[in-house]
């Protein structure tokens, strides 16, 4: 057992995905099975091996002049917003229950 139901509840909260209790059960099972399959990675002798975080070695930093260029217009940026108001993204109230909840 690598992760308990309690761990999985914690991960779900951290990644902001609301899972129902039966989904937590199933996910606990799946994650344990997948993590078990990753065991080989813990069994290699990797003493002194440098990690490679990126497949292209020896890349130089890419620099450019700091010139202002137009990106999205406000209209384009808002085009796919589920809710917008006065040219801004609209979200739910940040704290509390917006009058209806805790």
């Amino acid at each position: 057992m690598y992760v308990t139901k309690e761990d999985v509840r914690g991960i779900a909260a951290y990644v902001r995905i609301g899972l129902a209790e039966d989904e937590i059960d199933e996910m606990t099972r799946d994650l344990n099975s997948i993590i078990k399959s990753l065991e080989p990675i813990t069994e290699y002798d990797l003493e002194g091996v440098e990690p490679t975080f990126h497949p292209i070695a020896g890349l130089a930093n890419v620099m450019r002049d700091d010139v202002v260029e137009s990106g999205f217009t406000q209209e384009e940026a808002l085009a796919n917003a589920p809710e917008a108001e006065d040219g801004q993204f609209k979200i739910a109230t940040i704290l509390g229950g917006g009058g209806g909840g805790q």
Partner: protein
Amino acid sequence: MTLSFAEYTTLSIADIQAGLNKRSFSACELMHAANDAIQLLDEGKVDAFLSTTPELALEAAKRVDAELTAGKTAGEIGLLAGVPLGLKDNMNLLGSRTTCGSRMLEQYESTYSATCVRKAQSAGALPIGKLNMDEFAFGSSTETSAYKMTHNPWDLERVPGGSSGGSAAAVAAGMLTVSLGSDTGGSIRQPASFCGVVGFKPSYGVVSRSGVVAFASSLDQVGPLGRSVADVAVVTDAICGRDPLDCTSQNIVPQFAQSALAGQREGIKGMRVGIIPAYLEAEGVAPEIVLALAKAVKHVESLGASLVEIELPHDSAALSAYYVIGPCEAFSNLSRFDSVRYGYRAGGVRNLEELYEQSRAGGFGVETTRRIMLGSYLLSSGVYNTYYYPAQQVRTLITEDYMRAFEQADVLLTPVSPRTAFRFGEISNPTAMHLSDIFTIPVNIAGNGALSLPVGLGEQSGLPVSIQIIGPQFKDANILRVAAALETCYDIPRVAPPASFRQPQAQTLSSLEGGAA
């Protein structure tokens, strides 16, 4: 004249250019032929398309025809003038929906086009539509798409592979001349293999990923699928190169078509072809795959290449390294789906926290949720040093294996997939599904290029079998040269025979190795 379906499906890119120049047909006729083929074969049969873009295709076709009328040749208009092209639905195309096969992006309208798409369009391609895929490219069968199952044109009861399943199936069915896919661990090569088309994943950095929805940014690469080596080479020429919007993209001289031509004309005499004996003894590799590879090896020998036996001692670590690195990067990349700027938004929530949690729960499917949660776990403090860091160290060992291998060989010849296309639902265990990519994943880990080349139908399954040709990093010319030479040794149908579009017959799982199509 109008193009018949049979005529349309045999056209290569070179045929299209010649036909346009001789006025045998117009770009508008090509577009209509593509649309007719889709009408005939897609809905309820192959189901490769998530949406079509007839206005964009018509506009592009008219532009090509106008330039022809004005006296330009097809070649002067662009490498892909009049070529019907489909896009995996993780590629932004202005004027289309880009869903990534997810409910999360069901309503998402692209506000710009990906660089690879823009380049294809400016080369004269006709954007015909957007193609089905595993949700956010998480899968090897296209079964995790939130919208539909795409069927393998060689046997509608089987999966097309994945995650670029729609891209492979649409080309194999004859609906498109070429398509674009993306490949993080085999997602171009494996579906190309299952559907019997050519699929090319260039070296990491050859094609810009800007505008292609990211899965694992250190592994993702865009590439073409088509019915011949020459066609995928031309598409790569059209879409490759440095893009200021993707700092990993490299200055690449577009000589892919030239390399393919060299393979056809001059052959591969004197080239060194590496074979990996351990691959053929690997557990779970179907005998017909081993046989097909052995035949391909005979062909390269008869073409004058020399054979070298290669060892890749750390290859067995690639799969677990991939299933650490992939989910970690996906966890990070998919944090952007917050239902604020775009994406599915749940109703009836009381605060921002619930808005995030309910929207992400409602928008993401189970495989996506699994990978996000796995990535989060693997990156958590205390766990990071057990999996993530060693996975990146393993990446060094695998890369070094490849570098040593390519001191001895100019290309490696391997299987693409341990077996041919499987049935819907046949592999339901997530870890078992992961095994279908054992031969393709190491290539992404090392950042090299590789191509999936059809070599006929399997002796047992009767389904398409391909072999993989892997090249040294950024020497993708080697791959295309060998692939084009080897292609001349086979006489293979370029599209699935219409007979395989018959109503699926009831077949039991035990008749798996039985002979379909």
